[in-house]
């Protein structure tokens, strides 16, 4: 290829700056050819190189006594005892899902599953965090349906249950939805596989689907903002085939049960380019690949296309020399394409040949690890003060608490997500002890007396209003969800969704969020073992709210101690742990009832949070708790309603008395003060629970009793205004909450 082809326009197409191009010239000591330019473009994209985030991510706590593998591999690994490990990670597939919701979401699931089984783990659970615009928008309804069926189509076919997740609807995501997928697998402690090309002379083997022309430059597309032309990027979205992936999964695990495998990595973003150079770079070796051996879907593909294709369901492995036949036999058993395409070398280079000609020769480390690093400028947005300023005096207090509660239960963000999770197989593999619809999903670990609790969470509105506090709350709330099932957090994965990092205000949000995550993880003593950054979530110059999504894994032992959020028995005492303050800023109540997304997010004291969670876990392990539920979106009134109506069995009402203690009525009922958990306990254990809470210095008070077919919440000292009492039949509350999403979709 004539070097003069590389013009400014070509660099622009490849999203490489002139500065970055100069660095490529330095590394190679010559001009790159077309294939090499494409490889640099993909590997140095934001998506693959983390060039804007890498220096900041180093601040996060990533170590701990349980950590077997921290960030940098395909997934994080945490020891759970009994010779087993939990292997997990969360990843985004936002951009493809906006362009083509079904395939975008489906291949997101496919990608995260490969990350997990590549490590030697059998995937046992999927969760997802989704963000969409309002459901009054026809395109949003199309996106929601497409994304949900894409996740279902892929996960169900794979036989990996989708056991939970969360969805928030907010207009800010209308043109930039978020699809974040979390996967957890279980591996034997002594059978963890890494993506390394070790052993000079060992064969490099390609297996899985054939390589086609789909998804070329997917990584680069995912590192760019969107405009009206987004639909034209559809060819960069890959098409998933869960059936082939299922075969790939079983073939991988069969290969891993033997001893012929040296290293393995899936071909995700940047396809063969990333797997080849990352595997070599990690081990300090090189690889030489003969592209003519790569199984192809169609003839005439150029080296550029072969190296940058993001065709799905493909793997690259290094096996022990001389054991090629064993590998090939297992792949053929599962009807997969397989080919020895090269060897490990000691040159430190990725050398590509085709028909005896060298078509590319690039140092592996330069591609994988020596990409640009930016410490981009940051500054608070001009509107930040306005966002945080909220004059409560100008805000009328709630006049009709019943109506406000019903409006909140009708908000799709709060409403039941049954329409979604019934489309996901959430029981296959028969581990699901707590199904979707409680604070956390709980899965037993077969062969042990343990269970794992899983939760994903992030309140992005809090993060918009105060990125530091918002990120802290995301960690705290996720851990609180786990605590409500009786689980102690053991590891975190994150998926940091932000706007364009070249905007100082986005970088400001990012930096503060990292600080918040760091402080909260350190305080809660839980390491971040894997993660993903998704920048450029902006369309037509409008950035999404900063959305640092958190996935957290907790351990329950013994497994049968796990509890759920709904009330269990008439006569049980309802106890509230934690204090209620005047925390109205950034609440769902303000958004739904007053159409404002303003104020300061609730104050979080990490010491109080830790004490409340530790106390809850202790009470649950002592067998003193019938149900436990986190107070979050919609505050105490919504949490109480959920305790009454979210169970699948008989619905139980409650009679609750609260006292105002100088608070606004709306803050008392719908404020989102942190570090609060609603418990129900058997009447004869009420005293014991209250005294244990007192010993632990955790504020606790009995606020009511379970029973009847109504939810009644009276506010003492405020009887003069009838409107501030909640008094609703459970059937009315349930109807409102359960049917809200089908109603909004016109399917009621």
């Amino acid at each position, binding site marked *: 290829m004539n070097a003069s082809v590389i013009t400014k326009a070509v660099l622009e197409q490849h999203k490489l700056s002139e500065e970055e191009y100069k660095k490529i010239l330095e590394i190679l000591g010559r001009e790159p050819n077309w294939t090499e330019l494409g490889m640099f473009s993909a590997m140095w994209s934001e998506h693959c190189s983390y060039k804007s985030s890498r220096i900041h991510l180093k601040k996060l706590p990533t170590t701990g006594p349980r950590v077997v593998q921290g960030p940098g591999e395909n997934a994080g690994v945490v020891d759970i005892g009994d010779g087993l490990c939990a292997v997990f990670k969360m990843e985004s597939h936002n951009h493809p899902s906006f362009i083509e919701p079904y395939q975008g979401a489906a291949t997101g699931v496919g990608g995260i599953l490969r990350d997990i089984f590549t490590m030697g783990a059998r995937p046992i659970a999927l969760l997802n965090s989704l963000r969409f615009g309002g459901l009054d928008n026809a395109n949003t309804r199309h996106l929601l349906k497409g994304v949900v069926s894409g996740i279902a189509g892929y996960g*169900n*076919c794979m036989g990996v249950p989708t056991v939970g997740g969360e969805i928030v609807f907010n207009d800010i995501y209308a043109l930039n939805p978020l699809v974040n997928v979390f996967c957890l697998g279980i591996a034997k402690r002594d059978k963890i596989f890494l993506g390394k090309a070790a052993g000079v002379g060992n064969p490099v083997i390609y297996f899985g689907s054939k390589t086609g022309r789909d998804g070329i430059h997917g990584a680069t597309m995912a590192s760019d903002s969107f405009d009206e032309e987004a639909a034209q990027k559809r060819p960069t979205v890959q098409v998933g085939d869960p059936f082939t992936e299922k075969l790939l999964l079983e073939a991988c695990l069969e290969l891993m049960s033997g001893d012929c495998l040296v290293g393995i990595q899936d071909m995700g973003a940047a396809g063969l380019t990333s797997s080849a150079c990352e595997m070599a770079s990690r081990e300090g070796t090189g690889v030489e690949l003969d592209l003519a051996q790569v199984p192809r879907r169609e003839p005439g593909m150029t080296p550029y296309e072969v190296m940058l294709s993001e065709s799905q369901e493909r793997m690259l492995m290094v096996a022990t020399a001389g054991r090629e036949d064993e590998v090939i036999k297992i792949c053929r*058993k599962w009807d997969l394409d397989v080919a020895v395409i090269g060897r490990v070398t000691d040159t430190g280079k990725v050398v590509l040949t085709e028909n005896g000609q060298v078509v590319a020769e690039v140092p592996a480390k330069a591609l994988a690890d020596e990409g640009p690093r930016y410490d981009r400028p940051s500054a608070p947005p001009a509107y930040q003060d306005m966002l945080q300023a909220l004059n409560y005096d100008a805000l009328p207090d709630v006049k009709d608490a019943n109506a406000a509660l019903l409006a909140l239960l009708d908000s799709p963000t709060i409403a039941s997500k049954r329409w979604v999770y*019934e489309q996901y197989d959430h*029981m*296959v593999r*028969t581990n*699901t*002890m707590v199904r979707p619809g409680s604070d956390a999903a709980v899965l037993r670990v077969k062969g042990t007396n343990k269970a794992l609790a899983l939760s994903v969470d992030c309140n992005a509105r809090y993060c918009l209003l105060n990125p530091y506090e918002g990120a802290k709350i995301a960690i705290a709330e996720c851990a609180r969800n786990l605590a409500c099932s009786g689980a102690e957090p053991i590891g975190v994965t994150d998926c940091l969704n932000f706007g364009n990092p070249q905007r100082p205000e986005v970088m400001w949000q990012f930096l503060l969020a990292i600080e918040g995550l760091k402080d909260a993880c350190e305080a809660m003593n839980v390491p971040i073992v894997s993660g993903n950054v998704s920048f450029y979530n902006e369309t037509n110059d409008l950035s999404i709210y900063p959305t640092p999504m958190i996935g957290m894994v907790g351990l329950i032992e013994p497994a049968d101690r796990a509890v759920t959020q709904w009330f269990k028995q008439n006569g049980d005492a309802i106890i509230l742990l934690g204090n209620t303050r005047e925390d109205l800023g950034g609440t769902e109540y303000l958004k739904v009832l007053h159409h404002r997304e303003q104020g300061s997010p609730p104050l979080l004291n990490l010491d109080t949070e830790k004490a409340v969670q530790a106390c809850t876990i202790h009470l649950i392990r002592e067998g003193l708790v019938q149900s436990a539920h986190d107070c979050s979106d919609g505050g105490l009134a919504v949490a109480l309603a959920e305790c009454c109506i979210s169970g699948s069995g008989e619905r139980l009402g409650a009679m609750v008395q609260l006292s105002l203690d100088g608070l606004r009525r709306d803050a008392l009922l719908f404020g989102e003060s942190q570090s609060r958990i609603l418990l129900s306990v058997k009447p004869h254990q009420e005293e014991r629970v209250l005294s244990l809470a007192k010993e632990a210095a955790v504020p606790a008070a009995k606020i009511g009793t379970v029973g009847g077919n109504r939810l009644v919440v009276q506010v003492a000292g405020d009887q003069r205004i009838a409107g501030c009492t909640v008094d609703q039949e459970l059937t009315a509350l349930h109807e409102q909450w359960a049917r809200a999403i089908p109603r909004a979709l016109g399917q009621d």
Partner: protein
Amino acid sequence: MKIGVVVFPGSNCDHDCQYIFQDVLGQKVEMVWHKETLRPGLDAILLPGGFSYGDYLRTGAIARFSPVMTAVKAFANKGGLVMGICNGFQILLEAGLLPGVMLRNTSLNFICKDVFVKVENAATRFTNHCESGQVLKIPIAHADGNYYTDPVTLGGIKANAQVVFRYCTAEGKVTPEANPNGSLDNIAGIMNAEGNVLGMMPHPERCAETVLGNEAGRLIFLSMLETLHKPQLTVV
């Protein structure tokens, strides 16, 4: 007892079936790869749920051509116990071992949830641990569970008491509202005329352990084991 669990490419409830018989019920289990044949010594054959061949073309339509199916048919024709769950049921229909076909759910969506089924016939080799009319809570998880057949066949299987399970309310009423997928006559499970081949859409292997909060499915597996322990009931 030794149970053979057939593994098609795309089967995904094979391990769950293995776990129930081996780890929960203490029986021997042999996993049978679809490209192979049945080895002697198997007492019953299970076709598990999943997406054999990715459900491409039509559920079960390709799996019926898997090499192992010749042996499965021969096993069934000799009177051996064969049970198909979900995709296994779909394969039995496509293979002609049971009458009828599966259509897409009327909602067009995949549905995963607990349903109630009524035991219409408790005098079978798969339900002898149940009471007649007993209501079982068992989960379903499928996109194509809308059973259909022609009126003559339907009349025949009803007259012959081959309808084993029907979708019902918690109280045991067989109503249209209790039908999750639109299946003809609320049919959730049927057997062949000889009574040795059963197909059912609900997943009993997902509700046969205390830790999962529901043991209704255990009754079906215990019934099978009971049948196998009393050889006069089977004619292998």
